[in-house]
């Protein structure tokens, strides 16, 4: 270790600043989840449409997004916005990037959820005279949600972790606060150790909470 003295004091002194960054991380992650759930639901319905010119673009949206890096998508959107003179904040650009990215993953998750529902349910719904909208709203989505919930939770954890990439386009989230702290205190190793631990605790707490909520939501009726 060449006589390196670990000094966590300076890092802990700035803990409130880091936690403020963690709030931004949670904020952007939650908004990403909500918006990409909307994108994913629309995407899944398009993806399963019988109409070719609705289905094919949805398929390519999913394929292109899933086969290119999030970082490149973020740069494409962030620098692209400024190239065509659209003035948006870094936060908005980051949010749009995360939503576009996770929308594709959620499209596949929601599609799997809808396809897991037995064909008889659709037939029963139609024979009761439900419209497509009613069928989705009262029959399909409530049941699909049960199937979608566990992968959705995993995706949310993924969103929290990958949202650290928006620090590269200067969104003041946990990762960027840490980077700034590292460059002012020169305690990079200590800062990133603490940061990693904060991320691990956030994900552990949230995944634990989501598991409990899931157990409450989907209790088998007695």
């Amino acid at each position, binding site marked *: *270790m*060449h006589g*390196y003295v670990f000094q966590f004091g300076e890092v802990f002194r700035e803990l409130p600043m880091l936690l403020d960054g963690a709030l931004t991380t949670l904020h952007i992650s939650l908004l990403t989840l909500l918006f990409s759930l909307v994108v994913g639901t629309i995407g899944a319905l398009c993806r399963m449409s019988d109409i070719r010119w609705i289905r094919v673009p949805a398929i390519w949206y999913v*394929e*292109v997004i*899933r*086969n*290119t*890096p*999030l*970082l*490149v*998508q973020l*740069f*494409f959107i962030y*620098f*692209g916005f*400024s*190239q*065509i003179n659209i003035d948006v904040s870094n936060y908005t650009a980051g949010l749009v990037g995360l939503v576009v990215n996770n929308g594709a993953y959620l499209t596949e998750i929601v599609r799997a959820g809808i396809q897991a529902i037995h064909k008889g349910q659709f037939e029963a719904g139609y024979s009761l005279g439900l419209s497509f909208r009613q069928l989705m709203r009262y029959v399909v989505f409530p049941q699909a949600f049960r199937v979608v919930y566990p992968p959705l939770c995993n995706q949310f*954890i993924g969103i929290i*972790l*990958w949202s*650290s*990439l928006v*620090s*590269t386009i200067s969104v003041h989230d946990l*990762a960027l606060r840490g*980077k700034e702290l*590292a460059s002012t205190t020169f305690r*990079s*190793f200590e800062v*990133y*150790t603490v*940061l*990693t631990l904060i*991320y*691990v605790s956030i*994900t*552990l707490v949230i995944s634990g909470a989501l598991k409990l909520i899931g157990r409450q939501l989907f209790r088998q009726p007695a």
Partner: protein
Amino acid sequence: MPQYVQDRLNIYDAILLLQGLGNTILLCLAGLGLGLVIALFVGLARAAHFRWLSWPAALYIEIIRDSPLLMQLYLVFFALPLLGLNVPIFVAEAAALMLNSSAFMAEIVRAGIQAVGKDQLDAARGLGMGYVQTMRHVVIPQAFRVMIPPGVGLLIGLIKDSSIVSVISYIELTRVGQILTEKTFLSFQVFGIVAALYFAMCYPLSRLALYAERRLKVGG
């Protein structure tokens, strides 16, 4: 390509892009190869019945899977000099990717091992094989089959994740994209090309993973 794009992007930029592409591939291969070795041991430890083997392995896997790759990258990058290792950036980055991918791969290895039926283990024991022999001749060859589709998926993830290395200024594909954007201000075109190159690497692999999944489906 329109004239104004041709004026600002020239053949040297194309060469730079190809160099970046080459470095990305090298980085991924290094990360994958080394990660595979570690993952095999961690996965075996995770699937082991001794607590003092399986718990540390589980902790390793959990910490890596529950923290962002960006943090792991910075940690490795700043920790290696503290350990007295002055290594080139490439080695530090490959090490970080290796750590990250090994945790995910270890879970694939564990799932593969646990997918092998218990009767196979009993049969091997009945034939008088020891643990190492059972693993080597019976379990791992069969587990390998199950591991291929998720393994290819992981490789796709690795190629995409390697883009993050650009934040430490290693000249790979994404970093080249940043450099060219700073030079030409053609962000859409440059990152469009960069994205297309990543897509060209990942899309065939994702088709391969689908094909392998159908082809290698274990009965049952």
